[in-house]
């Protein structure tokens, strides 16, 4: 089970089943990525693997930021970079990088994730957490149906690997129906918002009723 309460003190996150896939939804600038990466860093501190699929940031930045966040260079991290077309894929020091031509290249993203999972598994990480940021960017490259199916298939793959999946989406960038459809591909959702100058979050779907809003 994954205990995420170090990051977000909500009871529903105390023991999250391996293979769960969680949507992190909220308007822009409410710290969705921050929350996802913090959950990954929390896993790294416990010796777990981390995979980041980034549609907005180059692999070298992702790696540097993640090292800063965890406070250690000794991370086991797979990065699927959908931004820069650098040819120097590869691995070393527990880092596995795969470049993909665009956020619309679902097969490429899948191959990158597969290679990262394989590398992390070989490095001895039995558990791990994956963050994909963001579905909103993917939705500008691919239609809703394809993104939905992608989420479903990736969820199944992560379920088989026993990973925890976190996928961010900008709730203000899509119509209500799109959010409603995409939501259906996930086990639960963390909603984030900004209220009176503070960031708040609540959990929906992992338990029968939504949790209270708590400060992040």
């Amino acid at each position, binding site marked *: 089970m994954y205990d995420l309460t170090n990051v977000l003190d909500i009871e529903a996150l105390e023991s999250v089943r391996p293979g769960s896939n969680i949507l992190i939804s909220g308007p822009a600038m409410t710290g969705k990525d921050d929350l996802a990466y913090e959950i990954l860093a929390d896993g790294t501190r416990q010796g777990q693997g981390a995979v980041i699929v980034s549609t907005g940031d180059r692999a070298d930045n992702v790696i540097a930021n993640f090292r800063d966040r965890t406070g250690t260079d000794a991370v086991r991290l797979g990065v699927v970079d959908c931004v820069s077309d650098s040819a120097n894929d590869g691995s070393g020091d527990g880092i596995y990088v795969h470049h993909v031509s665009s956020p619309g290249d*679902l*097969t490429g*993203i*899948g*191959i990158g994730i*597969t*290679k990262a999972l*394989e590398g992390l598994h070989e490095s001895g990480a039995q558990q791990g957490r994956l963050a994909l940021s963001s579905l909103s960017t993917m939705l500008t490259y*691919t239609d809703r*149906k*394809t993104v*939905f*199916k*992608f989420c*479903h*298939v990736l969820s*199944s*793959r992560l*379920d*088989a690997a026993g990973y925890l999946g976190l996928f961010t989406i900008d709730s203000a960038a899509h119509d*209500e*129906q799109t959010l*409603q*459809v995409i939501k*259906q591909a996930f086990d639960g959702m963390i909603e984030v918002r900004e209220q009176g100058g503070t960031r708040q979050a609540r959990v929906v779907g992992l338990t029968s009723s939504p949790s209270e809003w708590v400060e992040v």
Partner: protein
Amino acid sequence: MSDPDAPVVLIVEDEPDVAETYNLWLRDDYEVRMAQNGDEALDMLDEDVDVVLLDRMMPGLSGDEVLSRIRDSGFECRVAMVTAVEPDFDILEMGFDSYLTKPIRSEQLHETVGNLLERSEYDGLLQEYYSLVEKQATLEATKSSAELAESEEYADLTDRINELQDDLSQTLGGIEDDEDFIATLRGLGNGDEH
């Protein structure tokens, strides 16, 4: 094979003995078509073909060329490459759905064809699942929760969605296998546009 609903397998192989062996193994379960080269294969290709077993090294059109023409044709068949050397992910990146390394045993051949058909089944289920989820979202957006609670259509839809979720998680062993995972992702973009 006289069953008109039997899946159709197209064998593309320039060595007649080898092709005939595959035919013998498969013909009790499938409708088998045999082509000796790439041009013949493209002639025999139509919307009924479910699986193509494609020899990579053939005189005339190469297996890679035939694959790219099959993909361009828009027919939704699954293509397994038959090769003499053990390949890697590159095969999947090239667009093949699977591969078989010669010499092939009967068991392997059946397993591969069966797996490719299961992938098509998975794609079909996933497509149906999406359609229903979309319909459900439309109902949820246009009706009040009181109306939804009374709607028989909504209740049926919800039941069917739950059933499909179970079916999907049981097909392909829940996408445990990397090859199934990659090939399923590649199939997402093509074919099923409405």
